[in-house]
């Protein structure tokens, strides 16, 4: 008995130039906001961009984008709708606003299913918003998506950085490319994370201050692109550090 789905995944993704998982060992560091702002910014800069919400048990990007009643089309696979100029995929099309109490094995299966049947078409970037931690979703992307790259988000907190350190060790030992580290929700100008990032041999991509306007911007693309968070992401994109 062979599961045929995994065989087709890299074929499905082959017309996508770069596949970036926005990830962190830690929850609540701003992965979803950074992933969404990054996707929108790349799209505004003229790229074709997809956004894939892989945080199945607590999806957030549909709230950040203010997705209303978009639904994929079925045609030789699943064709994700375009939402705010992004080719947007999320489990919420199927679980709606209800809880999806999935174990790791279910997360893994749902992820494989969506990678096997989603027709992304041609994209310059596919941005993947990851769940926290180094569990099934991270391990599956590493084993199944040949060209996966990680962009890691942390906060200045020791609690966040220590889990990021473990995640980096894991990725480096497997030679999985890490684009670099984004430090989010800075409130002071301590340089610890910057220093530690250098020690890990990684690029420090951006520091994003805590910005009270972020919360008001949830659900409103224009407001979101006006936040300091989005401006820092724009600088990152413009700097070609990606």
């Amino acid at each position, binding site marked *: *008995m*062979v*599961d*045929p*789905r995994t*065989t*087709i995944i890299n*074929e*499905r993704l082959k017309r996508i130039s770069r596949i970036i998982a926005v990830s962190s060992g830690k929850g609540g560091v701003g992965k979803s906001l950074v992933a969404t702002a990054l996707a929108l910014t790349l799209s505004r800069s003229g790229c074709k961009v997809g956004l894939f919400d892989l945080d*199945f048990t607590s999806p957030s990007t549909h709230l950040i984008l203010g997705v209303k009643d978009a639904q*994929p089309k*079925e*045609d*030789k*696979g*699943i064709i994700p709708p375009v939402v705010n100029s992004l080719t947007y995929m999320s*489990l919420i*099309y*199927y*679980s*709606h606003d*209800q*809880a*999806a*109490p*999935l*174990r790791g094995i*279910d*997360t893994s*299966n*749902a992820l494989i*299913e*969506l990678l*096997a*049947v989603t*027709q992304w078409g041609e994209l310059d970037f596919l941005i993947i918003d990851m769940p926290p931690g180094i569990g099934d979703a991270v391990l599956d992307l590493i084993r199944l998506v040949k060209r996966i790259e990680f962009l890691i988000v942390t906060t200045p907190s020791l609690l966040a950085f220590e889990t990021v350190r473990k995640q980096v060790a894991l990725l480096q030992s497997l030679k999985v490319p890490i684009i670099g580290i984004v430090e989010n929700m800075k409130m002071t100008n301590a340089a610890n994370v910057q220093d530690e990032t250098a020690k890990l041999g990684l690029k420090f991509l951006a520091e994003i201050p805590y910005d009270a306007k972020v919360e008001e911007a949830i659900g409103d693309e224009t407001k979101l692109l006006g936040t300091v968070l989005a401006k820092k992401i724009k600088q990152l994109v413009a700097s070609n550090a990606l």
Partner: protein
Amino acid sequence: MHEWALAEAVIAAAQQIAEEEKLKEVREVTIKVGELQGVEKDILQFALSQLKPANFKNANFHITRAKTTLKCRACGNTWLFNEKKLGKDTVEAIHFVPEVAHTYIKCPKCGSPDFEITEGRGIWLESIKGVR
């Protein structure tokens, strides 16, 4: 019609096995589709016939259907999935991603959504026969 994407996966996997087993020509592919995902046999059969590569031109695709057995991790109860008890939209959602069953189905004995899909989830390549 997303059966087409699944058919492509089946062909790709069968092709890979044919290469590993050094089959020059594939004659028979047996596929099991689980009731849970509700894959349409006719559509799948049609898609497979359209997607056949050259070394599959004389291949028959046998598609068998498997009942879906669910087993509750909380109370141990085992039961059969019955799509007639669900609304059309729910059946369609499960058709695309079988795991959302955990959002819509509860153990009939204890009400838990924490069940295992022990059999009949999606689509499986059961066997492949051919000549070297």
